[in-house]
Structures are given as C-alpha cells and as structure tokens.
C-alpha cells in the first residue's frame, strides 16, 4: 500500500471509528445528559447534533493549531475557554435564526461546554494530533453522537406522537386513525429505555464484529464516565 492510500485509510478510520466502534455514547457512555434531555422530538435533536458537531470541530481544530504553544499548566482552562467561546457563538446564532428550537433546547446548548465528549476529544486527541486529523476526529465523534441522538429522538417522536420531524407518519386515534400514541415516550424515563436498548444493540454488534474479525477483546471496555 503506498503512503497516500495508507493515509487515506487512516483518515477514514479517524472518522468512522467514533461512529461505531468507539462511539462516544454507546461505547464510552459520554454526553448522556443532553442525549436524555432533548430527544423527545427529532427537530431539537437535529439542531443539537449540528451544534455539537460544530463545537467539536472548532474546538478540536483550534486546540490542535495551538497545541505546541499552550502552556501545560493552564491547558485545561484554555481548552474550556475555546470550547465555551464556540458554544456561546452557536447559542447566539440559534437565538437569532432558530428561536423556537433555541427555547426548546434552553440550557442544553450552553451545557455543550460541559459535555464530556468535547473536552475528552480536545484533551485526549487534539492536544496530540495534527490539525487535519483533529478536524476529522471532531467530525467523526460529532456524527457518532448525532446518529444516536437522532435515532433516540426518532423512536420517541414516532411512538410518542406518531410523527417524524413534525410530519404525521401514522394516523392518530384522536384524528380517526388507529395509532394510540404512548405519552410515556415523550417523558424523560423513556429516553433511558431507548438509549439503553441502543447501547445494548450497538455493543452486541460490536462484540460480534470483534469476534468475527478474530480480535480477542471487544471495544466496550474503554471507559465508562457518565456525563
């Protein structure tokens, strides 16, 4: 394999790994707070995902650019400052251009600052890797977070309101159809069930994949901090 192909392969892994094998939510169990809170309908989940992807990419890139000049003793506070600035800018943008969604997301946009995924990627990846790799890593982790978030929201909105992204999917019993929506799905406890099921599913797949490819340990034992 020539060098160009090899680097292409690494780039692909940098983006794809966090989507499945090292997914921040299903494998590392990070960022659960927002995943539980804003997934009752799809639209806020989509906006939240976009916000997190943006913040992850910006934070990863800026920290990677500065990684050789950041004084070691204050690196965490510098990282948090950069993350916080990106988050405030996103929040202001949402307030101006998507005010309804912004009021649904309320504090959770601001809480991206404390989302473990962002600080984890910045501290463990961007501090030690080049700009391009960090950008891809931010993108990959953002996408890994997003698909879980949007899946959970899709299941909850579909079962809880019979719609997806606000569009009616199944005819509701209240409007002459057959579907009786389950209100529990719109309440917070259902987020626990649904995320639990997705984590179970994702890990089962991961174990099977690891088994098939002959690897001895499945990647589910990486870390288990809860955010």
């Amino acid at each position, binding site marked *: 394999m020539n060098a160009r192909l090899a680097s292409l392969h690494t780039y692909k892994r940098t983006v794809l790994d966090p989507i499945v094998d090292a997914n921040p939510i299903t494998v590392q169990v990070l960022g659960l707070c927002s995943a539980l809170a804003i997934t009752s309908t799809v639209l806020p989940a989509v906006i939240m995902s976009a916000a997190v992807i943006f913040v992850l990419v910006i934070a990863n890139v800026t920290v990677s650019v500065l*990684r*050789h000049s950041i*004084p*070691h003793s204050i690196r965490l506070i510098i990282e948090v400052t950069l993350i916080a*600035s990106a988050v405030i800018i996103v929040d202001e943008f949402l*307030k101006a251009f998507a005010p309804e969604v912004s009021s649904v997301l309320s504090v959770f946009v601001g809480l991206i600052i404390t989302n473990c995924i962002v600080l984890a990627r910045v501290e463990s990846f961007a501090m030690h890797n080049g700009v391009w790799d960090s950008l891809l890593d931010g993108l990959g982790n953002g996408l890994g977070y997003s698909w879980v978030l949007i899946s959970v929201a899709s299941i909850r909105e579909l079962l809880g309101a019979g719609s997806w992204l606000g569009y009616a999917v199944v005819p509701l019993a209240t409007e002459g159809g057959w579907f009786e929506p389950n209100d529990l799905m719109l309440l917070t406890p259902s987020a626990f069930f649904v995320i639990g099921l997705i984590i179970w599913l994702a890990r089962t797949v991961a174990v099977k994949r690891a088994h098939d490819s002959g690897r001895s340990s499945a990647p589910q034992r990486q870390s288990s901090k809860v955010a």
Partner: protein
Amino acid sequence: MRTTQSPLRTLRFAASVALVCSLFVTTAVYWLRPIQAAYGALEYNRVIVAAAGLIPPDAALSDRDVVSRFLELETRIVDLELDWYTDAVDPLTYDYRPLAATRERPRYMPVYLLEQLGRLDRVVLPIYGRGMWSTIHGVITLAGDLTTVVGVVFHEHGETPGIGDRIEDAAWLAQWRGKRLYTDSGELMFAIGAAGRDASFRVDGITGATVTVSAVAAMIDDWFGPDGYGPYLAALRGGRDR
C-alpha cells in the same frame, strides 16, 4: 509536547486567548442582537394578538399573519400622568420594557384597542411587576365595559419552575375569565385569594407559590389603581371622546 513554564509566557498566552475569544464572542453578539430583538418584538406582537382574541393562543401563525393581525389593533399610548392618550411618543416604536428592568415607573404605556362595529370591544393592557426572581410581564384583556376580564397571560417571567410558573397554567388563568376588576361605582375590588369575597371579584391563589401570587396581586393593584390605568379606564368608561 514542548512545555513552557515561564509564568510570564503563561500569563501572556492566557491573556491573548481571552482577548481573541472575547473578540469573537462580542462580534457574534453585536451582529446577532438586532435579529434577536426583532424576533422578540414579533413574539410580543404574537402575545398581544392572542390576548386580543384574534388568534387562539397556540395557533401556528406565520410571522406575516401575526404582523397583519397586529395591525388590525389600534395601538395608542397612554400618558399615566395625564391619564389619557398622548402623541408624545410614537406608538409603533415605543418600548416600555427597558424601563421595566429599572424601578422607575414609566410615564407612557401602550394599549391595544380592538373595535367591532364602531364600538370598543376589547382593550389589551400590558402589565409587569417584580416576581420571585425577576420581572413578570403579562397582559390583561378587558371587555368593552372596561371592567370584565376577557383573559390574562403572563408571557415572560423567571418564576420557580413547577411552583411559581404555575401562573402559566391554563386552568388557573381560565378562572380569570369573566371576573370583574371594578365595582359598578368604579372601585377596584378584584383580589387573588380573598376568601369570602364575591366570587365575581376573586380568583384562587396558588398553593406553594405565595410570593409569585402576591407579586401578581400587587401588579393588579398597581396597574389598575390610581397610579396606573385606573383613572384612564374610568375616563374611557365615562365616555370621554377618543
């Protein structure tokens, strides 16, 4: 990774990161504030239009529709010292809400009048006051007799979630409908709680939300008493020519 330990360099680095970040944040806020303010004004118009009964409170109305319905209302400015309409400020651009943040009482307040068949049908009156944690903003709509409550809504507040924010409960707000603020002789009689009072002049309080409810009660006393809309409404009721 190269580590740089000189305290001066560390300080310089921290200061420059802080400076650059604050520049970015300030720029974003500076450019986006006007858009956010325009949205705030639109939301306020939506509240007024809903309070006037031109749309159901939760109707999904386009921004354009909100503005066109809003323009169906006649916006007038009341001078609370002269207790009558004034042209001293432009009704379409005047905003009392910056004053609401201070303790100062505004001299001018906008009122929104809806006429049906040449007769005054509804008056929407903005009110505000100090709540538990921050300013409570609301509007009260009175019927053409200028004493019967058509509806009340508190559209902006920072009351405790689950306790004070029950002033948003539809069931509680529904109690206000049809209640009267003034007696036939023009005396302000309406009260919250006040067990034993004639039911047409009272609504129930909210258990556990004493501070919030007292704040709302004080708002009603303030705004419909002699220093508020009271004399203006009396003059209007008395048939003073608009």
